[in-house]
């Protein structure tokens, strides 16, 4: 009897702890929506032939809806703000538990970061990730010195102070979340033309560090093991500067590993990008107009060079994607 009583008390405590954690954790629905990207993937049909992985340069610049509309390609963007290369590797490993795409497209911008950068960005990527071996590995690789693994295991340790600042959003989206992205792509219609950019600073060393290469090797191996074609890209942006020395290293790496590499920063004219109209933040990311141009451009490259299926001819898939397209254009209209 005593045993039952204690167990019941313990279970009640667990339920309260779970509920309180859920209530106090950020919902990422109206503010910092980037925090919901990792979770949204779990709710998707897993039927993608192309998976994009990388940082903000993928979720802002490549629209899977355009890839489908143009060439019938099914794709998903698994990207997060400031997603570091070990985080991309972890997310790719997790993705392969659900599906095996024909192509993985990796944006190499993260090669410039060999150390964890910010706790806040770690949280955006990890807070809503499902618990798995991969999540634990990502947390361990991403934590800053002052961070504590326990606060990821028990987010209440991190968010307890939100108690006094809870908003309507915290209650409204406590159990059910709304959809933020379109297959991982975030619509942004704003226009902020490029005016001035800071000086291109001299760097002490332009060589990518050993640990970033280690993770790039791991991504290459993982794709090989799963018979996936890996494509390296550098999304077009004017800042932060993508140094020639960076580009050369990626070109050499791609050649050595027999990979295709597309540096879209050097193809701005061919894509038709106009950084007076096609960027929402003065040259860092493309807006909807820019992303549409780039996605059309890339969809042709994918179609012409890789044997991908035109799913517009598949009744079942096209039904799903036609519905997605309707939602996509509705969201564009409403944004």
């Amino acid at each position, binding site marked *: 009897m005593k045993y039952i009583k204690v167990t019941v008390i313990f279970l009640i405590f667990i339920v309260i702890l779970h509920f309180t954690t859920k209530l106090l954790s950020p919902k990422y629905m109206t503010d910092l929506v980037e925090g919901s990207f990792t979770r949204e993937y779990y709710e998707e049909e897993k039927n993608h032939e192309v998976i994009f992985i990388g940082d903000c340069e993928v979720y802002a610049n490549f629209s899977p809806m355009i890839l489908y509309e143009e060439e019938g390609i099914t794709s998903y963007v698994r990207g997060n703000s400031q997603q570091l290369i070990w985080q991309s590797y972890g997310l790719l490993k997790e993705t392969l538990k659900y599906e095996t795409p024909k192509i993985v497209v990796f944006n190499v911008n993260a090669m410039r970061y060999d150390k964890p950068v910010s706790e806040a960005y770690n949280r955006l990527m990890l807070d809503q990730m499902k618990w798995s071996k991969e999540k634990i590995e990502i947390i361990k690789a991403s934590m800053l010195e002052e961070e504590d693994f326990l606060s990821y295991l028990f987010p209440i340790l991190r968010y307890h102070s939100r108690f006094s600042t809870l908003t309507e959003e915290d209650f409204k989206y406590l159990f059910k979340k709304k959809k933020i992205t379109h297959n991982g792509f975030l619509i942004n219609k704003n226009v902020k033309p490029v005016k001035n950019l800071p000086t291109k600073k*001299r760097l002490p060393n332009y060589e990518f560090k050993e640990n970033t290469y280690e993770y790039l090797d791991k991504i290459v191996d993982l794709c090989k093991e799963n018979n996936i074609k890996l494509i390296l890209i550098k999304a077009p942006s004017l800042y932060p500067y993508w140094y020639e020395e960076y580009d050369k290293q990626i070109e050499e790496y791609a050649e050595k590993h027999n990979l295709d590499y597309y540096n879209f920063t050097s193809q701005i004219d061919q894509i038709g990008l106009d950084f007076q109209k096609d960027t929402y933040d003065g040259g860092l990311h493309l807006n909807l107009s820019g992303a549409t141009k780039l996605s059309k451009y890339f969809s042709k490259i994918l179609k012409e060079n890789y044997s991908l299926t035109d799913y517009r001819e598949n009744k079942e898939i096209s039904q799903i994607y036609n519905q997605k397209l309707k939602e996509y254009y509705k969201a564009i209209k409403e944004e």
Partner: protein
Amino acid sequence: MKKKIVYFTILITLFGTILTGCSDKEVKQNNNTEKNQEQVFSLTYDHMNIELGSEFKVEKYGKENSYSEIESCAFEGLDKTYTYDHYEIYTYPENEKDYILSIYFLDEEIETTEGIKISDTYEDMTKTYGEDFKKEDNLYTYTKGKTNLKFIIENDFITSIEYTYDV
């Protein structure tokens, strides 16, 4: 009874950890206050003293030649850059104000407060600042409190100078 004690201990530990989390933050804040009182690097140029970590005011530093602003990927606020004749001031936002994050030298017409400029040698640097630096690749960093003075040295010559502030 034993199990009851175990459950009770787990509960206490969990809440204890939560409280520890709070008190840890308080300790860190106190340390920061102490650090703020330490000696720091600042740039004196053209009869102006530019203090790292202090609020940036155009009226104090004058009208810039050009200005650029960079948004972060997800968070609000802009990192701003004010370009003057011989240097750039980078700021970071906090509580709707802008604070000086770094000062980057653009040419050899400007010297550090202690008289070192781009094109000087490694020896000039160590004579002036000593050898208590942190070296990473070609980057030599001197630190005072939350401020740093960074030199890039190539073939024995200084090719870049930057003051930075640890936010």
